[in-house]
């Protein structure tokens, strides 16, 4: 620790303004602050500050994602051996899953952070921590059989077009991870939907036991069949689907961490689930097709609903920023997600589109909340006068 500090102190003069390697200042700064909280003190304004900073905040979100990631790794292996009809051990399943999932994670972080550092360098800013979370979210919402080059292209697209063109962390309109997923969905639809991409090995035509389709429950329901997985299986997550989104249980553990630490908005999570449940109930009453007949609770456990509600909708930058607005925003996400799911048989996963749509409208919701505040103030002035 001391040696590392000395090393950094030795390099520091060479990357300061005016020194030979000045252009590497932001890269150096990012590495330095990764290892050490800087020694800067408050100069004016408050003299003491809350211990939390953006690095800590982002690190906690990443920690909250770990249950979903670990479960996803095991489930990839489990589904793979299930499709082969082989009775594999727990560690064999984890091993297979890790081999498939970790490269995606590495590519996502490598490409994303590389671009972030480049932009920080060009702008002469400090590297902001936003991508620490996006880099983990992107792999978790992808199907496991996606080629790695697509991961790289999508990550690059999401960082550049989804975030940096707006000015970087804190300025983006849409959730960068969802931009990556939407990009893949519209650019390479065959790789992002259908029955084969969700289980590793199926696209390569590896042997499949009789009667095993690999289709997700949503896929089945969209084609008019009742989902073959029970509510309990969907809740626990032993179903095909994107890497990190299958286990509602693992996601809820993450949600508990986010809510307890006060970092994720419980208002958005609760209202998203409420919106989804209500829409599910309404469709149950209607019941015109298989998707409408799916139990409302079951709906919440399927596809990326829980993952979107807990980790995507709560992204503070792209969500509404007023407390009242959060209720409206979350509710509409849940409501629209189930609606898109039911009415769009071509692509039954509506959560992504619902969140991106509400990201777009978040400033509008905030606008009305702010106007409400302004009107109250004006009214008060008139009463007084």
């Amino acid at each position, binding site marked *: 620790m001391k040696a590392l500090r000395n090393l950094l102190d030795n390099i520091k003069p060479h990357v300061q303004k005016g020194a030979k390697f000045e252009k590497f200042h932001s890269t150096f700064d990012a590495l330095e602050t990764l290892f050490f909280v800087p020694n800067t003190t408050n100069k004016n304004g408050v003299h003491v500050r809350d211990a939390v900073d953006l690095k800590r905040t982002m690190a906690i979100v990443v920690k909250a994602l770990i249950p979903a990631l670990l479960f996803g790794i095991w489930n990839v292996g489990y589904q793979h051996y299930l499709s082969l009809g082989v009775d594999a051990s727990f560690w064999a399943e984890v091993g297979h899953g890790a081999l498939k999932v970790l490269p995606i994670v590495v590519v996502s972080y490598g490409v994303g952070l590389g671009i972030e550092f480049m932009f920080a360098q060009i702008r002469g800013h400090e590297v902001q921590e936003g991508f620490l979370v996006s880099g983990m979210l992107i792999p978790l919402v992808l199907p496991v059989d996606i080629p790695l080059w697509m991961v790289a292209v999508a990550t690059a697209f999401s960082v550049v077009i989804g975030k940096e063109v707006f000015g970087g962390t804190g300025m983006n309109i849409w959730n960068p991870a969802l931009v990556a997923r939407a990009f893949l969905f519209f650019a390479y639809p065959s790789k992002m939907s259908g029955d084969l991409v969700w289980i590793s090995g199926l696209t390569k035509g590896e042997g499949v036991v009789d009667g095993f389709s690999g289709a997700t429950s949503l896929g089945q329901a969209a084609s008019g069949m009742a989902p073959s997985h029970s509510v309990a299986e969907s809740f626990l997550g032993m179903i095909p689907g994107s890497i990190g989104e299958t286990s509602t249980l693992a996601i809820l553990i993450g949600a508990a961490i986010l809510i307890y630490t006060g970092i994720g908005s419980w208002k958005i999570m609760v209202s998203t689930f409420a919106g989804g449940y209500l829409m599910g109930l309404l469709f149950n009453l209607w019941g015109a097709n298989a998707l409408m007949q799916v139990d409302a609770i079951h709906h919440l456990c399927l596809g990326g609903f829980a993952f979107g509600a807990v980790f995507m909708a709560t992204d503070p930058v792209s969500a509404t920023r007023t407390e009242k607005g959060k209720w409206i925003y979350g509710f509409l996400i849940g409501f629209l997600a189930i609606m898109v799911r039911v009415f769009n048989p071509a692509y039954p996963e509506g959560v992504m589109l619902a969140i991106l749509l509400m990201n777009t409208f978040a400033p509008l919701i905030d606008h009305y909340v*702010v106007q409400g505040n302004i009107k109250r103030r004006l009214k008060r002035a008139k009463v007084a006068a």
Partner: protein
Amino acid sequence: MSEVIKIKKGLDIQLAGKADKVFGQAELPELFAVKPTDFHGVVPKMAVKVGDKVKAGTVLFFDKYRPEIKFVSPVSGELAAVNRGERRRILEVIVKADGADEKEQFGAANAADLSKEQVVEKMQAAGLWPFIRKRPYDVIANADETPKAFFISGFDSAPLAPDMDFVLSGQEEALQAGIDVIKRLCDNVHVGVQNDAASKVFKNLNGVTVHTFSGPHPAGNVGVQIHHTMPISKGEVVWVAQPQEIIAIGKLFTEGVYDANRIVVLAGSEVEKKGYYRTKLGASISTLVKNNVKTDDTLRYISGNVLTGTQVEEDGFLGTYHSQVTVIPEGDYYEFMGWAMPGFNKFSMSHSFFSWMCKKKEYRLDANMHGGLRSFVVSGQYDKVLPMDILPEFLFRAILVEDIDKMEQLGIYELAEEDIALCEFVCTSKQPLQATLRKGIDLMIKELS
């Protein structure tokens, strides 16, 4: 007994180093100073030269644009120095005390016999006008305006703040005399007191309306109290002052002299003998802190509290509006992997450190920033510590883009820096919010005057 106004939002920072309610003994220092930087918007013009003899109450400088607003010496002695900063801006006007304690005589008077104009004139002549500040903007009041009320906060809820009941006990008469003067300026006088404090001093005052508040800091901020009793709309003005300043005003009329005596609390984790001290406005803090602080770390001396105070040197001076001196560690160290460590000793409003497991503990906080400046990312933090019907983040955005209309609509008239100091404290992105607000207020003053 009026109803209790419950303040729900806010935060009491559990800072170590609370002072006991005892008086400490310390000599008065040799040097005293009046700092023009304490007064927003004042352009100082010197009235005396270095080497001139002054008495307590002699004018040292006045505002170039409002020459009737005068600033006087707290003690008798000789003008020792005028310290200037960048572009020859006057930072400190230093008086070396001679110990003779001579005072300018302004003559006692019965405020009830005087008109408002005569009261104002007398206060301005004796250098007491700067104690009357106004909301909006938190600047020295303009005597031509007619305030809708005069508001005094009877308690200070900031971290390690002095206990007003203790400070004021024994000074009831002077306080009442001051209130009688204030009532000539504005008949509608309000006092805010704390629910669980005895506040006898205030409850026994004649001619004031008492409001009772409960809840965490910033419940003691006069701005918060005004917001909950008589919110300020466009065009309205409320005057405010602090209890010890009211006493000084009372003494001008009963004794005819400028009274610079103040009781300050010396607190903070690094102070050995914490307690209350009798000193004078503008006194050097050197006699208070010398041989009275721990010396293991670099220290930060603050005139005022840790949220809104001014950083001073160990021989720096007490600010005009401050009745507190706080000493905390400077915190100029590197912390290895601080963002990943469990953090048992960290204080945070969020539960992102393991310190939530031991709730009641007191924390030895330092002046480290704990991170770097970032864009606004986390939302809803400021709302939790600002007990007003105001959307702080949107106001700050309006200030940053210099949108005067929006600033006005979003309630900038109701805020002073102290009200949003907690927002700055909790900010994950380490934004300088108090400076931002002052920038907005300065812009409002410039554009609307």
